């Protein structure tokens, strides 16, 4: 594994070049995250207050902790970019327009490619052939689950947040 700081730096960069405290402040409301100090050891970072050294292996709890942070930042980005309808040039992650109704395969693929390039660093067409379809299925499932529910995000916005959450924790994002 790479040092935890690399993951954290990547997270901060993806979501708009945040400083760690900005990320904490952005992620925290509505119980999406707590404070960095709560997670030092769980993220694998050394904690000199209690003489805990750096962890040299990744583990499930580390994954769960990064997952909590990733989900929080994706949800916040969906709230900022999509729900608040920011102009495209001011969007942090979702730099595309959301089609009305369920996206077609092509519409989804074009927008997914934007996220794929952001988080994995290369065009989605160069990835495994069924990746786009797999993510589209995730999108459709989440959107269907949230249809009709009274929630802070629309079903489509929730679905894009879920796609973002999956990409931010993707094995390629974690290992490269």
């Amino acid at each position: 594994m790479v040092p935890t700081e690399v993951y954290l730096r990547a997270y901060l960069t993806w979501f708009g070049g945040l400083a760690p405290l900005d990320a904490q402040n952005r992620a925290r409301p509505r119980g999406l995250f707590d404070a960095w100090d709560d997670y030092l050891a769980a993220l694998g970072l050394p904690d000199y207050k209690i003489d805990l050294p750096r962890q040299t292996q990744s583990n499930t709890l580390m994954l769960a902790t990064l997952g909590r942070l990733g989900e929080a930042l994706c949800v916040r980005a969906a709230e900022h970019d999509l729900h608040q309808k920011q102009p495209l040039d001011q969007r942090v992650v979702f730099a595309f327009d959301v089609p009305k109704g369920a996206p077609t395969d092509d519409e989804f693929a074009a927008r997914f490619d934007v996220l794929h390039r952001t988080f994995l660093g290369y065009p989605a067409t160069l990835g495994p052939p069924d990746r786009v379809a797999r993510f589209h299925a995730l999108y459709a499932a989440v959107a269907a689950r949230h249809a009709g529910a009274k929630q802070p995000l629309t079903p489509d916005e929730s679905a894009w947040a879920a796609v973002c959450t999956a990409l931010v924790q993707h094995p390629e994002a974690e290992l490269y």
Partner: protein
Amino acid sequence: MKRRTFLHVLGGGVAAFAARKPLFAAAAQAPADQFFVFVHASGGWDVTLWADPRNERKGIVEPASTENTDPAPITRWKSTKLDGDTDTFQILAPNDVALRFGPGIGDLYDLRHRLTVVNGLAMNTVSHPDGTAFSATGRHLAGGHSPASSIDVAVANELGTGQLLPDIAIGFPSAYIGDRLDRRAIPLRVANAGTISKSLARSDIYLNDDDRAAVTALLSDEAHELAGRSTYPETFERVRSQEDALPRLLGNDLKNAFTAKALTDAYPQLDYKAKYIGQGALGAAFAVEAMKRNLVRCVGFALGGLDTHNQNYKQHAHTQQELFGTIATLVKLLDVTPHPTRHGAKLADHTHVLVFSDFCRTPQINLSGGRDHYPNNSALVISPRFKSGRAFGKTDEAQLLPADAGLAFSDGPRPISPPDLLATFLHAFAIDPRTYLRDGEVVHEMLV
């Protein structure tokens, strides 16, 4: 290809596969329903206050006395004259066991029949990180790093890989070293027990558990597909196994059971407000709850505050009393908690506790009124597999240094050392110590 050549190639392949096989050799013979608790008494304890009691001035030994210790809060302190106006403590020497204690033993004295004490452990170090690593792994640090896996990782690797959480280390000095161990034995390290619940907590305001399950299923599929394409498939398979464990970890039942509040409510017997080690008691509560739910194999936690170089030595006996009080309460909880898979059995019958520290403290009091680091140590085992009510190993009268333990070591008379204790502990569970330890000899005399 000729038959002989074919067999030669086939044989080489099998040999190579065997050499790369993870080290779970002993698992088949070892009991798979035992639980393990490892406690690091961090900071270095004064053994003359509990396991190796001294209440006389002899050689360089200056015993705890009313000059250097505040005896008021120490329930087992019974005064006896040292000299002049100065009192020291009476040694606790019960008739029913072959053990002697100082007053720091606190409430654990009531469970003396179940204690195995190891004295005169040869530490060869007075450095906190080195002593801690030596006690936990049986090896001194090399270049600041531990060169061997710690005891909890060894046990988790052999007996715990089937558990959801094979090894939890709450401020415990776990070390996972090498590439031949099962990845599931990687310890989950956290600073305190409450953090586990925080890491698992998720808000349902935006995405819900079903959404997360769909995300982790997708990531698991992606990792599996990438493993098929990768030169190093094991890396992706490892990520996949971690992804697969997530939904079970993120289940609400689990999240809610391990919050600090849930643990303190479930186990009010533990003293979470103890003056010196209160927060550490949460680790004991976590251990009982996680074992009761059959989620873990090993739980390690730290109970600290023992580094007393200065006037703070006055509180050292009090800190020990809290430390051993927590362990006593832990054992009593195990006594009343049913084993999760053995019908009618209690956890205490199948749970094995090892308590160690970095090293002990100097026999003399320094100019600041405290005790510094000293290359001797004691350890404590509470396990049905060990002979209890007995002490093994000894120290010399005048200098409190490790002395010949009187055991039949293959390399002649010598004190017990941490690798010996760790080897004995592993052997007690049918784990070959040589798989994990470079040094150390099994002390059969300690085992039932």
